């Protein structure tokens, strides 16, 4: 079972190269952006005491820590946006493309069940793609910290203290991993919906995936003048149970004025217990289970060959 899953997931990575090409492209873009910012900052070197990541007015220890963590969060956010696009396109394509090119007949000639196949695609979308994204975030972070360290050292600063001593690397990295993997699990009902559409739609899976929810939401508004459906879907995106009611603005304000010399811990701001005990977490998994079962059923009983 596990050997089959590994082989099936490996197959997904071979077929959908965007899964690893996209994080690599994002990493390159972010790194080039940082280089551009540093070069831009160096143009105003006389006015700057120490410029880090283009945040020219950062002079205090607390502010520098916020800036460093802020850069990390910004990088992570760019990866999260890319993750969202990759996941949507992958989930909608993975069970549709095999029917379109008729390779489903070859895959089904092998002793892998429809359940194993669909579950491998769900695991790819909900776990593997987020995990690859986390690796992308880590690599980008380390590369950019090295680039910045070189730049700071060239300006006469002590990179060991100013950069490496001002950020909790493993705390931040673990937080990034938890955020992206938690997001995959939290969004699993949407992923399962896309998988269902991917195996069910005869054509235009993208349209088939987005049209029914839009029509349903509009119908609710026209008939009842309410927006519960859109609100429910929309608010799921902010992953509230993981961060409670954390406001990004307040987070930076609080961290900026915090006393002491401790580096910023992102893990402190996360509530994993609250996340896994939230009813939304379990109801999401239930919806994911129902839609995944439906996708397996359609792949099993549909005859497109």
């Amino acid at each position, binding site marked *: 079972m596990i050997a089959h899953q590994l082989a099936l997931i490996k197959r997904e990575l071979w077929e959908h190269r965007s899964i690893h090409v996209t994080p690599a492209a994002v990493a390159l873009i972010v790194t080039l952006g940082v280089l551009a910012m540093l070069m831009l900052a160096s143009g105003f070197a006389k006015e700057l005491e120490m410029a880090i990541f283009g945040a020219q007015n950062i002079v205090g220890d607390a502010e520098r820590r916020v800036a460093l963590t802020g850069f990390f969060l910004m990088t992570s956010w760019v990866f999260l946006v890319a993750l969202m696009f990759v996941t949507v396109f992958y989930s909608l394509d993975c069970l549709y493309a095999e029917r379109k090119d008729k390779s489903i007949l*070859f*895959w089904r000639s092998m002793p892998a069940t429809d359940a194993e196949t669909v579950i491998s695609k769900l695991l790819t979308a909900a776990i593997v793609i987020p995990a690859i994204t986390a690796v992308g975030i880590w690599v980008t972070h380390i590369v950019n910290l090295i680039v910045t360290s070189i730049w700071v050292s060239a300006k006469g600063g002590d990179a060991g203290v100013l950069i490496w001593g001002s950020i909790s690397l493993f705390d931040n990295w673990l937080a990034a991993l938890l955020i992206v993997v938690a997001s995959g699990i939290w969004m699993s009902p949407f992923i399962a919906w896309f998988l269902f559409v991917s195996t069910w739609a005869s054509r235009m899976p993208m349209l088939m995936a987005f049209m029914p929810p839009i029509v349903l939401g509009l119908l609710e508004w026209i008939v009842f003048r309410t927006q519960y459906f859109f609100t429910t879907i929309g608010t799921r995106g902010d992953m509230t149970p993981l961060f409670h009611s954390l406001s990004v603005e307040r987070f930076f304000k609080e961290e900026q004025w915090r006393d002491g010399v401790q580096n910023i811990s992102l893990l402190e701001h996360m509530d994993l217990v609250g996340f896994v005990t939230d009813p939304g977490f379990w109801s999401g998994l239930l919806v994911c289970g129902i839609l995944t079962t439906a996708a397996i059923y359609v792949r099993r009983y549909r005859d497109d060959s």
Partner: protein
Amino acid sequence: MTSLVDARGVSKNFGSTRAVDNVSFEIEKGKILGLIGPNGAGKTTLLKAVLGLTDCEGHLSVLGFDPFRQRKQLMQNICFIADVAVLPRWIKVSQILDYVEAIHPNFSRSRAEGLLQQTKVQAGARVKELSKGMVTQLHLSIIMAIDAKLLVLDEPTLGLDILFRKEFYANLLNDYFDEERTILITTHQVEEIENLLTDIMFINDGKILLDSSMDTLGDTYIELQASGDDAQKARGLGPIAESEMFGKSVMLFEGVSREHLVGLGDIRIPSVADLFVAKIKEARK
């Protein structure tokens, strides 16, 4: 003899269309069975039922398994080529070998690589870079490296030129087939496979018109070429089909004793293609 496939009263409907209609047959170990039928006869549907790709009514057992409900177990001992185009175009040759090796317990990678070495297929090439013939060679190499009890081939040489077709069947017979293995094959190019078949089955409108071993075909069916009064006498014996060739009447008889026909003209065993045409025409009367 052991029955690998046991079908009794098998039917399959698509809406109001009856694709397979109350079909019963057995396939024994060590046979090469040709399933022949015109387009829309129900042969692909029947193959899909055998492969567990579609559910059906009636009793169907393949290698002792219910093919639709025990597909995973079945697929460990059965393999099929549905069409030359089904290999995913994006995959590399080495990747497809990796995948089958990980998924199939009866796959021998070294055997597949040995077979591929006899072709021009390179391990680093993607399927989309290969010619149609090379894709078939790749697919056949994979299939032949699987120690399966039943091989199902649905139009395996469709779209290939005569050289590849001949090579395909030669490889199948020389490098794969033995008395422990069974092959079920459908094709329109019936002339090319009739010499390798041990058994034959005709299907039309979802019903089986003929189910016979090739050895006994000549006992049941006789072709007679006759002219003049002899032809007239032969007509009285009730041929199932008659055509004209070079001024002679060519008649096909079913179940008529050879002794009755001797002396009326040239007698021979009909070709599968001629027999097929005659049976289909008879069924459509």
